[in-house]
């Protein structure tokens, strides 16, 4: 196994990780500030992807598609917050799980109703398609590099937003003490709607970006949602830093596990068995990682002590 291959796989893991981060960031913000478990976050991922595919289909413009994904997902998020989620802040986790599960059913089946069952497809814009040669002779798809860049930029932007702006102060205050922000004279319900819409927009962006190289279909959000949950649970629910570290860890574990576990198993057993067993273990690896982290630290790497 060459160094080039290993570096390429690490890039792949990073790219997967930062896209997970876009999902995880919203989830963790929503949990940190509002104390809400949102199973329907994957629906915004799907909504963003469908919005992008629809707009790209009409206009042919990738940029417009991305903007549409952001706007439509944010609007969907704001609407869902105002109609449903707002009534759940005081409820226990069980009600939240159930209500957001119901939202998944509505979003998924509703999207199927509108767009039909067959997947839609987006094309990478011409300027970003094809491979580039990196230092060291590594050939890597330009679009995936762009995804890594976008992910890191969003991370930086979120950091700036939370550490350096007025809204950030309000968000941090909200994480520490809900009554405090009310006491500060902040319109709390507007803040909540804003945060929810922001989280939804990030999920929608991820859906559009990833949908471009994969496919846009009903149900695409749930597998990513579960992975994003794993990220924030590993990182500690409520922590943006934790979500980022968790996402990168999950991205790398998932990508590298799929490559190296079968190789590792070949040391012990015949190639066919090693392939199958390695692949099986690889698909379980991130859940095993999560369980280990939780057994070691029941509130995640950067989570507040219970």
């Amino acid at each position, binding site marked *: 196994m060459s160094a080039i291959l290993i570096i390429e796989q690490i890039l792949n893991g990073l790219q997967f990780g930062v896209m997970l981060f876009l999902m995880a960031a919203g989830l963790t913000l929503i949990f940190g500030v509002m104390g809400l478990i949102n199973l329907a976050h994957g629906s915004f991922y799907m909504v963003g992807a469908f919005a992008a595919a629809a707009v790209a289909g009409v206009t042919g413009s990738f940029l417009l598609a991305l903007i549409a994904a952001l706007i439509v997902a944010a609007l969907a998020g704001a609407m869902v917050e105002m109609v449903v989620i707002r009534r*759940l802040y005081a409820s226990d986790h069980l009600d939240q799980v159930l209500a957001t599960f119901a939202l998944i059913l509505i979003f998924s089946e509703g999207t199927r109703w509108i767009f039909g069952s067959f997947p839609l497809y987006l094309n990478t814009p011409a300027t970003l398609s094809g491979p580039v040669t990196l230092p060291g002779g590594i050939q890597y798809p330009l679009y995936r590099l762009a995804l890594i860049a976008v992910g890191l930029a969003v991370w930086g932007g979120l950091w700036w937003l939370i550490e350096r702006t007025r809204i950030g102060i309000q968000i941090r205050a909200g994480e520490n003490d809900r009554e405090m922000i009310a006491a500060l004279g902040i319109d709390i319900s507007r803040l909540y709607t804003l945060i929810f819409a922001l989280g939804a927009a990030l999920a929608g962006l991820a859906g559009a970006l990833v949908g471009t190289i994969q496919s846009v279909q009903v149900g695409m959000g749930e597998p990513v949602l579960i992975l994003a949950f794993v990220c924030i649970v590993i990182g500690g629910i409520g922590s943006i830093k934790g979500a980022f570290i968790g996402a990168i860890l999950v991205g790398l574990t998932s990508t590298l596990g799929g490559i190296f576990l079968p190789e590792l198993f070949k040391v012990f057993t015949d190639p066919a068995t090693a392939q199958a067993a390695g692949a099986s273990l690889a698909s379980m690896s991130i859940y095993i990682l999560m369980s280990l982290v939780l057994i070691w630290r029941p509130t995640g790497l950067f989570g507040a002590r219970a």
Partner: protein
Amino acid sequence: MIAERWLNLAVLAGLLGVAVWARIADQPFTITLTTRAVILALAAVGLNIALGLGGLVSLGHAVFFGLGGYAMGILAFHVQTYTPLEIGPISIAGSTSMPVIWLTAIALSSLAALGIGLLSLRTSGAYFIMITLAFGQMFYYFAISWNRYGGEDGLSIYVRNGFPGLNTLIPFQFFGICFALLCLVLLIGDRLARSPFGLALNAARQVPVRVETVGLSPFRLKLVAFVISGAVTGLAGALFADLNRFVSPTMFSWQLSGELIVLVILGGVGRLIGPVVGAVLFVALEHLLGGLTDHWHVFLGLILLVIVLFARGGIVGLLSRRRLGDG
């Protein structure tokens, strides 16, 4: 206002009535549907022991449902293919006897619940929900890649397993078995809720710190509840597999875990008969709404939302005003 006891009996009598009517009217498929509702009810009654009594929001109960299913699948598969099941040095022929399969299902799912509970109960709240979900995914992916037993394809069992003295292939007789088990488990669940253990568990859900200061361990109480809960759901899984004569990894899927929670909430959490009402309603909706529109999930979602937002006690809560926890 209806006394809850009468409501419980009415629901069970209704189920039995539908099956008897279908038997007389020669509508075997209606019996099969009713059986499906009974089995799902059993699984949800199991979940309700953890969820309603213990306050444990498990998004991984499909693990036990699936284990029960695979207990049936694997035991019957070895008989069907005339290959002995070898566990280390022990070699057994498998089994097509329902009681043996049930005991195996209960044993396996209890054991899994013990292991998962020991690890998961260290966490609480959102973390508990997520770690149970993660265990569910682990089993799901394991089952998918376990090619010995069909992997993603699952296992097909051609003939329904047998029960001494009955012909289980006759839909009504199989219904009878499932219905009797449901009644038995409901009876046990009722006794459990009122027992000393139930009293302590009920308190451990509400104020764990109080339970500690009277010298009891909330962790152990919840662990035992989780194991009992897993065992019942496992039994339901074995029956479900026998109903379909088929098991597959979808029995481990997180959607199934979610649906089990839906059944419990639809009927009313913590109520004895709640999960049964929920399951009946779910199967009825599936077939009535499903008959009207392919997009019935949208309406199921809306109904769920309304229940969560406006009818916290579920259907049973609406029908019976008795507060939880009295007597």
